[in-house]
């Protein structure tokens, strides 16, 4: 098999791939960062956030869901795609209530880190200021739905890894929201545990362990010294 049978070009650079790899996975393995939010190496592609949108042979699509194929011409690092990503991020910010100054996830939040990476300077759009609940019923964790971006990583982790099926997406369109699978709808009435995969996958500050907020000083947080692109490629991101 020749090189061209197992490679594509990404912004002019030849990227080798293994059979079955997505464009995002192959790019990451080759040390090229494509911005993404709902994709996670431990889970099958989801393709919901669209942050990883790239142009493949002239058509836009999600790098996390499109299989790498020989000879593909992929564009990612373009002003047009960065603008699309910036707008997507702005919509995520205004759709929820993301107040970074008081959020304990600040400095290790993927949404915030991506906003820095893509140079989002303002929310631009009118804030929705939705009314969303906090679920503090669990003794060790609390859910702050104000910050949920509905990436469904918790849904996938709880269902596919933990086998507990604690979270689900309900509602449609603007009414979409994460619900908890218990008679009361409260996390405290589930068997959610600190050892669950779902307890560690939230990319934002929606699922948080109680009472340890701000224990890491400014200067030692995940994204304090390097942007998400470098942290992600170095394999520190989880």
């Amino acid at each position, binding site marked *: 098999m020749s090189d061209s049978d197992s490679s594509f070009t990404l912004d002019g650079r030849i990227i080798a791939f293994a059979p079955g790899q997505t464009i995002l996975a192959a790019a990451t393995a080759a040390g090229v960062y494509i911005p993404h939010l709902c994709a996670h190496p431990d889970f099958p592609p989801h393709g919901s956030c669209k942050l990883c949108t790239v142009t493949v042979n002239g058509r836009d699509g999600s790098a996390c869901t499109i299989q790498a194929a020989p000879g593909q011409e992929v564009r990612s690092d373009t002003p047009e795609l960065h603008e699309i990503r910036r707008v997507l991020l702005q919509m995520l910010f205004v759709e929820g209530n993301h107040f970074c100054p*008081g959020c*304990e996830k600040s400095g290790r939040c993927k949404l915030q880190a991506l906003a820095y990476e893509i140079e989002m300077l303002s929310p631009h759009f009118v804030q929705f200021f939705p009314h969303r609940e*906090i679920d503090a*019923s669990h003794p060790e964790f609390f859910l702050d739905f104000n910050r949920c971006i509905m990436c469904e990583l918790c849904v996938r982790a709880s269902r596919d890894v933990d086998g507990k099926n604690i979270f689900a997406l309900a509602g449609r369109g603007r009414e979409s929201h994460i619900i908890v699978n218990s008679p009361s709808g409260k996390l405290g009435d589930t068997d959610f545990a600190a050892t669950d995969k779902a307890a560690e996958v939230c990319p934002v500050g929606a699922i948080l362990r109680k009472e340890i907020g*701000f224990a890491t*000083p*400014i200067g030692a947080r995940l994204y304090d010294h390097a942007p998400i692109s470098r942290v992600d490629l170095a394999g520190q991101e989880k």
Partner: protein
Amino acid sequence: MASLETAANPKKLRRVAIDPLTRVEGHGKVTLLLDAENKVHQVRLHIVEFRGFEAFIEGRPFWEVPVTVQRLCGICPVSHHLAAIKAMDAIAGYSHLTPTAEKLRRLMHYGQILQSHAVHFFHLASPDLLLGFDSEPTRRNIVGIAAAFPDIAKQGVLLRKFGQEVIRHTTGKRIHGTGAIPGGVNKALSAAERDTLRAGIDQMIVWARDAVRMIARLHEVHPAFYNGFGGFRANMMGLVDRHGALDLYHGGLRARDADGGPIFDHVDYTTYEKVLTEEIKPWTYMKFPHIRALGPEAGWYRVGPLARIQICAYVPSELAEIERRDFLAIGDGKPVHGALLYHWARMIEALHAAEVIRDLLDDPDIVGTDLMAERGERRSEAVGVIEAPRGTLFHHYRVGEDDLVKFCRLIVSTTNNNQAMNEAIRAVAAEYVDGRVLTEGLLNHIEVAIRAYDPCLSCATHAIGQMPLEVDLVDADGVLIDRRRKNFGGA
């Protein structure tokens, strides 16, 4: 003087507004009601912004609060951070701190005192004092000071910068860092950071003492003016340590009357509601605290540097105590009450802060790594109090078993000074404005009196749902037909 709060017949009077107040933190205005002869009938300080922090703290997890409440203010966020964390220590079950954690918190606090006092005196107040109350307004600012007195301006900027660097090394950022967490602090001070700060502190002490001496010289030139401007007899309140000495981080509440006589002493601040209460008035978002036993008419008080320096038995640092004794000498054994004397007292505190910073940096504990205390029994309600740059700051919280804040009350320094600031501007209006042709310079006299208190107006208005509201229905001739009032307290 109190009669100037409300004019007997306001409809026939001319209204003059100083809006916005300049060189203060936040948004406020002063209104005066004058008759045809420019006689003053009413003077009020209004805080025209509304923040509502108390409401949006409620419902949040308690460990988030000490970080969130810092956003009340960009000048003294550390004070809110520490007042909140003192309460949250108790909520989380920490009854004491490790020596290193307490000293690091003190270090960040005294850094805060130094930078806030420097920014107030040099950037905000010195243009009035050095260039003149009625000097050209376009040059009456820090840029004008830099042009006329470049060395003084530079010292002010660098004193502030040093205080901010202390804050950065202890909280991670110059403004709105983290630092204190329930039970301790999240960051140790490295030896390299300690050495960096230690290398600069001696110069800061010299400059802070120079600033005290500069105000003393200004006073020497016009002693009667400085002693009398915006002056009025007032009770005074602040924290003192168990020996009665000035302690800006922790202590018991002490109140003295206008002659220095005792009102209460060493009151455990967690029981502040036994000695203090608040009154609401219809014309401002800011409440009026007072000493419960004395009532609203006689029980209001002054907080901040002018009160603290005079109610404490001594300032526990060598150079500042020498300056304090010089300052007290002008009262000939009695407390002094002139508004401009705040600046003198404030710079004595800045000098004290610099000395405390030096002593903390020389303490081996400051580079310790034992940052978290042993945890004890949790509590559902707690109060944290600290002496912020502008005065006594109260944070009171109740937290549910689910860790969410159910109740939040903030009584900030500027609120404690509310009646005193109103008295100050009424005193100035009566003496300098009454019966005269109004000029910008004359009106600035009123701003000078407010500025002396270093008010933080954006910190001061939070009690959503309790805002007093008065609606008047008047006919075409201005005759009152009906009036509806809401949340008026005793007024």
